[in-house]
């Protein structure tokens, strides 16, 4: 492949989350909120109204002591690709093209100024990764000074979600451009949650790049819409055909099994 072709090769940014390492500390959630100016309410007790671009779920194996086991599962937007490029559940339904799939980066974007709040995309997303701004964002006095200037705040009445910290990608690209480079190093573009995770459970990179960690761990199978070849890796709701770019890793079978729904009579179908 020529150098120019190499440069133009599409990226497919994705994530691997090692559930055996995740302690459920929630640092990813906090880092995400701070990084992306995610608004919060005075009373956050109703979680169905909370905006959580990154949300940590607690899973249990449903067994009693001493066999009881738990697992924490962080859930960002899965940046689904669908069965053909861009046929993500949410992108395909948005009537105003306010959410889009980038074939250059594999990132599902959200264009706040175009969204008019029909919430159809929320109905389409089985991961509850999308959140509606039921209220206008109000920051405690003084806190607005701490907001990131790289990320716009969102008004009431529109939907938002994790962007894989896209502004960081833009920043890294700008820097590379100024240094007369076309390609980014793996470490140059990392999401806030990846950097904040104290256990190193989250890894981020280009799934198309064989040198990147995410590619090495997940071993996406191009013949099967990126399904992981690593036997310990799985994607949430794999069989629905959403084709996500977030891979989970666990050595525990019950955890891998919790990633999907199976009929009682059915054997877990792995690779």
């Amino acid at each position, binding site marked *: 492949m020529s150098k120019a072709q190499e440069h133009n090769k599409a990226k497919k940014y994705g994530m691997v989350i090692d559930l055996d390492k995740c302690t459920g500390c929630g640092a990813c959630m906090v880092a995400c909120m701070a990084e992306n100016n995610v608004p919060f309410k005075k009373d956050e007790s109703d979680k169905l109204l909370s905006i959580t671009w990154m949300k940590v779920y607690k899973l249990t194996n449903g067994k009693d002591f001493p066999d009881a086991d738990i697992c924490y599962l962080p859930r960002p937007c899965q940046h689904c690709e669908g069965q053909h490029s861009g046929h993500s559940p949410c992108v395909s*339904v948005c009537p105003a093209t306010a959410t889009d799939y980038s074939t250059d980066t594999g990132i599902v974007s959200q264009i706040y100024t175009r969204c008019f709040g029909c919430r159809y995309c929320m109905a389409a997303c089985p991961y509850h990764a999308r959140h509606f701004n039921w209220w206008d964002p109000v920051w405690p006095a003084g806190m607005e000074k701490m907001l990131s200037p790289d990320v716009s705040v969102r008004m009431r009445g529109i939907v938002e979600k994790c962007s894989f910290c896209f502004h960081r990608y833009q920043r890294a690209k700008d820097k590379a451009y100024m240094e007369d480079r076309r390609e980014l190093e793996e470490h140059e573009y990392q999401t806030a949650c990846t950097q904040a995770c104290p256990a190193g459970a989250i890894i981020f990179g280009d799934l198309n790049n064989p040198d990147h960690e995410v590619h090495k761990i997940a071993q996406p199978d191009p013949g099967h819409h990126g399904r992981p070849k690593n036997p310990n890796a799985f994607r949430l709701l794999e069989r629905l055909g959403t084709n996500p770019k977030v891979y989970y890793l666990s050595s525990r079978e019950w955890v891998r099994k919790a990633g999907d729904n199976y009929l009682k009579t059915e054997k877990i179908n792995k690779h």
Partner: protein
Amino acid sequence: MDSALIPKGVQRCSLGKFTLFIGAVSAVLLWGVYAMLLCWLKGLNQTNMNDYYGFALWIWADLAVIALGGGAFFTGFLRYIVGKNELKNIINYAVLIGFICYSSALLILAIDIGQPLRGWFIFWHANVHSMLTEVAFCLSCYFGVLTIEYIPLVLENRQLNKVPFFHNLAHNMHEVMAVFAATGAFLSFFHQGSLGGVAGVLFGRPFAYREGVFIWPWTFFLFTWSAAAYGPCFTLSLTKLLEKVSGKKLVKDNVVELLAKISGWMIITYIIAKIADTWYWAAVTAPEGGFTLMDFYSNNPLYGIWILVLEIVIGGIIPGLILITETGRKNKFLLITAIILACIGVSVNRWVMVLQVMAVPVMSFDIWAMYIPSWQEVATTILPVAYGVILVALSYRYLPIFPQERELNPITD
């Protein structure tokens, strides 16, 4: 006092009584308007919707009125395209109901997005792959068609009709009405279908997802079919209601029976298709997603298998069977039971395709979320009903909606 406006040869209640009635309904309407303004000025936090129930009461109401309003396009289709001439005696009322239903649907959508000022984005940034885009375009166009169908009726008001221009306009519009009826039927076939497609294409939601042909899931066709089947029942039930309220017979039995018969056969054929669809979904589509039928109907306090029974048996098979038999249609009690059950049946279907879709957990560690609408949602849902009552009352009083009324109720002094 307003007798000059009332069609010749028919009797209406006193203006005082009428005003009192309109006043009472207007109070309900204002309550709805107040709630609507709250939603627009303060935002959708006025509702009990949340991120699990992003589609809730309103969207159901929207889909339901559009299905029930389907009587307009289907009766128009039968009258103008198929040539069922008897239906000319009920088409005006069907058009009026359709007009009310569709204007209500547009109003509900404007409230539902919480920021109507951005509503035009759907046209401006249209994503042609989205079912909702098709709905928006067809809905707006069809509302235009219904308005065109309603205008000549308004122009037939006794005073307006005295103006030669209006008289000629109404006459000429009547002449070309078949064109509009055909356009309306065409638009309706599509947008009713797209509304079905809205849920059917959600491949991330195994409860809603259906296979189909090309880009159209089976729900696309089922929605069109059901609107055509059940819509006329709504027209008939409102006709019966108006007859009850006014204490007069307004439409001859043969007209009612003809529409009821066609509706009955449509319901029966629809329900066979619906059962086939449900069976295929339960046996093939849902298991492919890892679900059994009962996963969708258990482990929660509300969504039980009774919904399926209510929709298919009580709201489908029973009214269908009653309406296709002559004895059923001729028996007043059975006829009314059937048309009411039919309206319930199609409304339950739309309810399921909106709310249950959202309630069913998809991730294995997710929860069933329940939801109770806030008073603001209820008030804004009742708002179009109040508006509809007012428009029906005004139209009935001042316009010749029922051509057979004079003949059926001769004035004897």
